[in-house]
């Protein structure tokens, strides 16, 4: 008798927070996990680059990727609990106990998705500042304050987060386009394509009240991270190529 209202509440959360259609449950977590691994690899590259050259911009770039990776991790953990922990309550018969579980998962979802938003926005902001070659200034504090506020309000209006992410991504794309105009490197072109697709995925998420568009957004995000992976492979292979062509020790 008491189970029904609880189940309804969970279903409501799935719709409001994640918008995932039932058949896509779990698959989006795999996409997030893949994104997390790619972001972690980019962080490792940037950190190794910093260790070698002591260029602080490499470090800031790495921190940016690491923050976005933490954002992905928060969403993975939260979604895992959201998708797979609902059956636990079916064994609980007491209404009062069930109520407490709902309250604790409420807090977990809110904290999890809040951290996802905060880390993602902070990470993208760091990437933007490095790409645009912005010098450290007091304005960073103002930026951080706005991102914190947006992360909090993002819980009430889901599109605020995606809109903000989209705007920062557009700024990042513009900054990298300026870099591409100077260096004309294929790698930078690949990087721009990856960011454009990421921006496209967030513009799709703006309309993710339609479950099919949520799926489309996730697939575009997956393609974007596959392109990031191909960029990592190109960078890694180019270093190897030098080794093989010039020397055979």
């Amino acid at each position, binding site marked *: 008798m008491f189970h029904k209202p609880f189940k309804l509440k969970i279903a409501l959360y799935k719709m409001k927070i994640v918008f995932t259609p039932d058949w896509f449950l779990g698959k989006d977590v795999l996409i997030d996990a893949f994104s997390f691994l790619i972001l972690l690899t980019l962080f490792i590259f940037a950190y190794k680059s910093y260790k070698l050259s002591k260029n602080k*911009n490499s470090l800031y770039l790495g921190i940016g990727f690491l923050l976005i990776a933490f954002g992905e991790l928060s969403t993975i953990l939260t979604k895992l609990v959201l998708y797979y922990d609902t059956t636990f309550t079916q064994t609980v018969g007491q209404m009062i106990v069930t109520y407490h579980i709902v309250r604790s998962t409420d807090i977990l979802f809110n904290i999890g998705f809040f951290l996802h938003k905060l880390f993602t926005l902070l990470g993208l902001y760091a990437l933007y500042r490095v790409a645009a070659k912005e010098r450290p200034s007091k304005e960073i504090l103002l930026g951080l304050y706005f991102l914190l506020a947006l992360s909090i309000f993002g819980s009430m209006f889901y599109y605020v987060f995606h809109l903000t992410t989209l705007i920062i991504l557009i700024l990042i794309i513009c900054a990298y386009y300026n870099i591409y105009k100077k260096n004309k490197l294929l790698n930078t072109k690949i990087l721009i394509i990856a960011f454009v697709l990421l921006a496209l995925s967030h513009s799709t998420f703006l309309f993710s009240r339609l479950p099919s568009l949520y799926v489309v957004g996730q697939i575009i995000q997956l393609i974007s991270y596959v392109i990031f992976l191909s960029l990592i492979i190109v960078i890694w292979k180019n270093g190897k190529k030098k080794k093989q062509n010039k020397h055979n020790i």
Partner: protein
Amino acid sequence: MLAVILEKSGRIKPTHLMYKANLSHNQMKLYLSELIKNGLVENFDNSGKRMIRITKKGVDFYSKYGQMREFEKTFGI
């Protein structure tokens, strides 16, 4: 210096290295001792002539350095 040694199939005469890397004698002595200390290059005797060769560690370092430079160029940093 590592790039110059690698261009010459991994082994080079010290004087050639100095000219090819565009270094003064003092600069070369300083940099070479640093490279030897870190195990990236080593001296060896080739029919009574002193030569310098890159080690496996040196080749790996150069490869990683190439990757990191490629990474930095990609991101314009």
